[in-house]
C-alpha cells in the first residue's frame, strides 16, 4: 500500500513537477482554443455547404465530412507531421496538430451543425427572407441560434472529445499536458506526474460533462 501511494500519489514529486505540468497545461489550453475555434468555424461552413442547393458543393462537403470522420485522427496526425515532409511540406508540431485537428474536428462539428440546421423549420428562413434579410443575415440571426440551441449538448460533447484528443499531440512531441507529464515521469521514475495530469484533465472536463448531462436531463424533462 505504501508502495502504491509512493508510486502514484507521491505529493513531493507532484509538487516538484507541477510547474512543468502547468506549462504543458497552458499549451493544451492554447491548442484547445485554436482547434475548437477553427473546428467550429470549419464545421459550420461545411454544414452550410452540405445543405446547399448546389449539388456540386453539397457532394464535395459530404465527401469531405465522411472521409475525415472515417479516418483515425492519430493516423491523420502522423501523416500530416511525418508524411507531408516527404512532399516538401514541413510543419511545426503545433501547426501539424492544428491542421490535422482542423480536418478531423470540422468534419465532426459539421455533422452536429447539419443536424441542428435541419431541425429548424423551413418557415423560419422563409419568413426572414420575406422581410428582406439576406441569406447570411438569415443564417446568423434566425436559423443558427435556433440550430445551436437544439444541438447544444452534442456540441458540448464533441468539444469534450476534442479536448481529450489534444493529448494525441504528445505523439509529435508537442509539449502539451500529457507530453510534459510523461517527461516528468521519465525523469523522476515515478508515475505520480501522470496521475496529476489526469487530475488536471478531470478538473477541466468534469464540470463540462456535468453540464451536458444536466442539460440532457432538462431536455428529457420537456
Amino acid at each position, binding site marked *: 500500500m505504501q508502495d502504491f501511494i509512493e508510486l502514484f500519489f507521491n505529493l513531493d514529486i507532484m509538487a516538484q513537477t507541477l510547474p512543468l505540468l502547468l506549462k504543458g497545461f497552458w499549451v493544451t489550453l492554447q491548442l484547445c482554443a485554436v482547434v475548437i475555434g477553427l473546428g467550429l468555424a470549419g464545421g459550420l461552413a461545411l454544414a452550410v455547404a452540405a445543405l446547399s442547393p448546389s449539388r456540386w458543393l453539397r457532394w464535395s462537403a459530404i465527401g469531405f465530412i465522411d472521409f475525415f470522420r472515417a479516418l483515425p485522427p492519430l493516423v491523420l496526425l502522423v501523416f500530416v507531421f511525418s508524411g507531408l515532409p516527404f512532399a516538401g511540406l514541413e510543419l511545426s508540431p503545433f501547426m501539424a496538430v492544428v491542421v490535422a485537428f482542423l480536418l478531423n474536428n470540422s468534419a465532426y462539428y459539421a455533422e452536429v451543425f447539419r443536424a441542428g440546421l435541419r431541425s429548424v*423549420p423551413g*418557415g*423560419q428562413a*422563409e*419568413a*426572414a*427572407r*420575406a*422581410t*428582406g*434579410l*439576406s441569406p447570411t*443575415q438569415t443564417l446568423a*440571426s*434566425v436559423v443558427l*441560434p*435556433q440550430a445551436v*440551441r437544439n444541438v447544444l449538448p452534442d456540441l458540448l460533447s464533441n468539444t469534450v472529445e476534442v479536448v481529450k484528443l489534444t493529448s494525441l499531440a504528445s505523439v509529435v512531441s508537442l509539449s502539451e499536458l500529457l507530453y510534459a507529464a510523461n517527461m516528468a515521469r521519465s525523469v523522476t521514475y515515478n508515475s505520480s506526474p501522470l496521475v496529476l495530469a489526469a487530475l488536471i484533465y478531470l478538473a477541466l472536463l468534469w464540470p463540462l460533462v456535468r453540464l451536458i448531462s444536466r442539460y440532457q436531463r432538462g431536455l428529457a424533462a420537456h
Partner: protein
Amino acid sequence: MVKPPVLEIAGLEKRFGDTVVLKNINLKVREGELVFVIGPSGSGKSTMLRCCNRLEEPTSGAILVEDAKITDIARRDLDKMRMKVGMVFQGFHLYPHMSVLRNVMLAQIKALKRPKDEAETRARDMLERVGLSEKADAMPSDLSGGQQQRVAIARALALDPKVMLFDEPTSALDPELVGSVLKVMKDLRREGMTMLVVSHEMAFAREAADRVIFMDGGLVVEHGSPEQIFGDPQTDRLKAFLSRVSQGAE
C-alpha cells in the same frame, strides 16, 4: 377615377419540373384594394403569392410592384424589394428565440438599416396597431395563435410595405381566435393598405373584399365582385367549390 395598380401580375406561369402549377395568371391590385383569392387546395394560390416576392421563381410572366418590375431584379438585389411586399403565412413563423419586440425590430435593423431606437419606436407603434402593446416583452411561445399571427402582421407592417400578402392567415387558428386577426385586417383595409388575401373566410370576403378571384387547377376561373362570385357563380367548378365550402369540406 381609377387608381394605379400597386401590384400587377401579368401572364404569370409557374412549373415545378413538368407540372404546370400556374397558367397565364393576370391580376391587378389597385391602391387600397383588398383582393380575395379562393380556390380548392392545390389550385396554386400559395404559389401565386410566393411568386409575388420571388420566394418562388416564376417560370415566365411579369410581376410589378408600383413601377418596379420584380421579375427583372437580379437575385442579389431581391432583399430590398421583399420589404415592399409584406407577407403573412399560415404558420406565423415568429422567431421563437426572440421577444415579440425583437421579432418586429429585426428586419428593420438588419434589412432596412434603421437605427435601433427608431426601430423600437416603430415596432411599439405596430404592436399597438395590432392591439398587442402589452406583449412587447413576451416570448412568442407565451402567446395564443391569434396573438402570434398579429405579431407576424406587425413584423411585416414595420417595414412600410406597399402591399400585404396573406396566405391563409387564419387557417391554423382555433375558431375563437380567428376574429381578432380578421379585425386587424379590416382595420388595415380601412387605413388604405393594399392587400391580396388567400383565405377560406367567406363571410370576411363578403364584408371586406373589393374583388374576389376563384382559382382552380392553376387558372383564374372566375373574377368579380363578392356579390357576383358568391351570389351568381357562373361555372360549375365555382358552384361545386362554394357548396363544398358551405358544408365545411374545404
